[in-house]
Structure formats: structure tokens, C-alpha cells
């Protein structure tokens, strides 16, 4: 799974900490998601979708090995 959370976050001019607070997780969790070390739950993905005002598919993409 690949994602463009970092880009979306930059568009909204948010730090990892800001984004973490907005969706109720720790900064390290955002860091892990951005680094593709952790695939978030559907609930978290939908929270990000609401925040970015975009469908989940726009910032989460399946990679070849998925």
C-alpha cells in the first residue's frame, strides 16, 4: 500500500503533530503511515478522507505486491 498523506498534509499546511491531533492518534502513527510501515484502519482512512475532503482512493493506492 502506498499513500500520499505527506503531500495532502503539505497542501493543508499541517505538521504531523497537527494532523495527529485532528484525527486522534499519535504523531508516531502518522509518521509510520507516511513511511508505509503501517496501514491504517478503515476508520482512520475515512477520518483522513473527511479532513482532506477527498475520496480515500485519492491518497491510498495499492502497490504491486498487495
Amino acid at each position, binding site marked *: 500500500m502506498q499513500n500520499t498523506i505527506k503531500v495532502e498534509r503539505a497542501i493543508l499546511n499541517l505538521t504531523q503533530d497537527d494532523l495527529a491531533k485532528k484525527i486522534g*492518534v499519535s504523531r*508516531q*502513527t502518522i*509518521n*509510520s503511515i507516511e513511511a508505509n*510501515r*503501517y496501514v*491504517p484502519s478503515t*476508520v482512520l482512512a475515512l477520518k483522513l478522507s473527511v479532513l482532506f475532503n477527498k475520496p480515500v482512493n485519492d491518497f491510498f493506492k495499492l502497490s504491486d505486491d498487495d
Partner: protein
Amino acid sequence: MNKQNIVDCERNRLEKITSFRLPQYFYKVGIAIGAITIIMMFVRAFAMEGDTEWLKHLLQKTLLIGMLLMSIARDKEEDELTIKLRMQSYAWAFITGVVYTLVMPYVEFGVSNVVHSGGEVYQDLGDFQILIFMLLVQLMSYHTLKRYR
């Protein structure tokens, strides 16, 4: 209550038990209990005389309680990633605990007989030794996984 409701009720109860955590300050309470118990263990071993076997067993139980509190206390920033890491650490603790229980008696027996011929006879591990090992592995693996998240 129909069958589906009973199943839902059971599932909800199981989920509540699975997600049960003590408040965060219990982690510090657990550390304090553990530290005091370890100090008391040294005092019992080196400064007390007479039959203190009952105290040894009491201190072992207290140490286990302290570490259990540390294990099930809520994290400062508990979210879905820390819950996943916690579950992974329990899996690690369980698997290594079983392997340790199976292998360690033979290691102790072998080492004892190599060091001095006709050493200890084979004996299984005690409950304290297994439980303390599992709790140690759980706590260490959880904090290691958290550090590398």
C-alpha cells in the same frame, strides 16, 4: 432474546474484555511495586534470617502483580497502532514463553551436569519463572516495537 442477540451480546462482552486497560498511572504504580519488591527480595536474601520462605513466595506474587499492572496499563498515547503493537508483543511473549518452558529445563539440566558431574536432576520450571519471563518479554518487545514504529 433470540440467538443473534445472544451472539452479539457475547461478542460485545469479549471485545470489552480484550480492550480493557487500566488508567495510565497504573504503569507507575506497577514500577513502584516492582522496585520495592526487588529491594525486599535482596533484603530477604542477604539481611534476614530464619524461615522466610513464605516471604519469598509473597514477594514473587507481588512482583508478578507489579509487572501485570505495567503490562495492562494504558499508554500515554493509546491509538490503533499501539493496540496492534501491544497484541504483537503478547503474541511474542506467548510463543517465547512456550519455547522457554520446553527448552530451559534441558538447558539447566545440561549446564548443571557439564559444570559439575552428577549435577542437578531434571526438573520443570516453576510458575513464577515462566510468568516473569513472559511478562518481561511482553514489556520489552512492546517498548522495542514502539521505539521502531
